């Protein structure tokens, strides 16, 4: 009976081990924020890594605002923001339609990168959606 139990345990361990081995490439990309002396900077990171990091400050993302301006028009602008594990924060805003459009490409498991100039205006917004950014089961 005890022998049978050991055999079952061995099979179980093997089965678990093989499932881990077949999980595919997983890549953690913690958020990095670089602030330059002139006010410009850049940030990058994977949303999943930020969300499930061991601290409560790390985050990264972009958003769009459409606000009624009260004069028959809608004001459109977008922003990106991030904080690394040390809570160094970076922000940028833009009303450039092409940059705003790129935010629509962001996905749940995207790696996001953005950069800004001394005025805090976004100069680039990029993303990469890869299987290795999807969290482990």
């Amino acid at each position, binding site marked *: 009976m005890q022998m049978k139990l050991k055999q079952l345990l061995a099979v179980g361990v093997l089965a678990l081990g093989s499932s881990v081995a077949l999980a595919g490439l997983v890549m953690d990309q913690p958020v990095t924020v670089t*602030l330059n002396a002139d*006010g410009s*900077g850049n940030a990058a990171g994977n949303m999943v890594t930020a969300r499930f990091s061991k601290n409560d400050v790390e985050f990264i993302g972009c*958003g769009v*605002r459409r*606000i*009624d*301006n*009260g*004069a028959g028009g809608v*004001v459109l*602008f977008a*922003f990106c*923001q991030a904080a690394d594990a040390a809570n160094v*924060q*970076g*922000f*940028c*805003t833009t*009303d450039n339609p092409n940059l705003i459009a790129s935010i629509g490409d962001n996905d749940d498991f995207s790696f996001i990168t953005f950069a*800004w100039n001394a*005025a*805090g*205006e976004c100069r680039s917004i990029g993303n990469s959606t890869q299987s290795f950014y999807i969290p482990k089961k």
Partner: protein
Amino acid sequence: MRAASQLMKTLMTLSVLQTIGIGLLVVHAFREEHRPAPTAPAAQSPASVSSADGASQADAERLRAILREELAQEHIRPVQEPIQPDPVHSRTPSPAELQQRDVVAQQIEAYRGTGTITDAQMQELQADIAQLDAASRRQMLSKLTRALNTGEIKGRL
């Protein structure tokens, strides 16, 4: 001996014929060169107008004068035309718009004073920024973003 004499005779005849041919060609070429040119059509360029035609010469002179004038004006004109300002983005804001912008600027200054902005306050501030004219809006968004980047205001957009 007789054959050589016959050959010499043939060569002499050919030489005379060649000389006559060359002479005829020279005369023909000379005549072609001195033939008067046909009257220039109206659309022809001044450079091709015959000097024999007085009216055409006058036209050519007028054209030259016009060209000289045009070139002189081109020389006086600045090399690059000044870029026309974008009426939407560079128009001077009205006093009411400036006042509205100042109110938003004061709000941002107030948040810099306290050092934090809540999510709800940020939403309100952004709604106020949206009411501004395009130039002021960009200016205030920049002011807010810089304050966030320097850490003078802690919060999120």
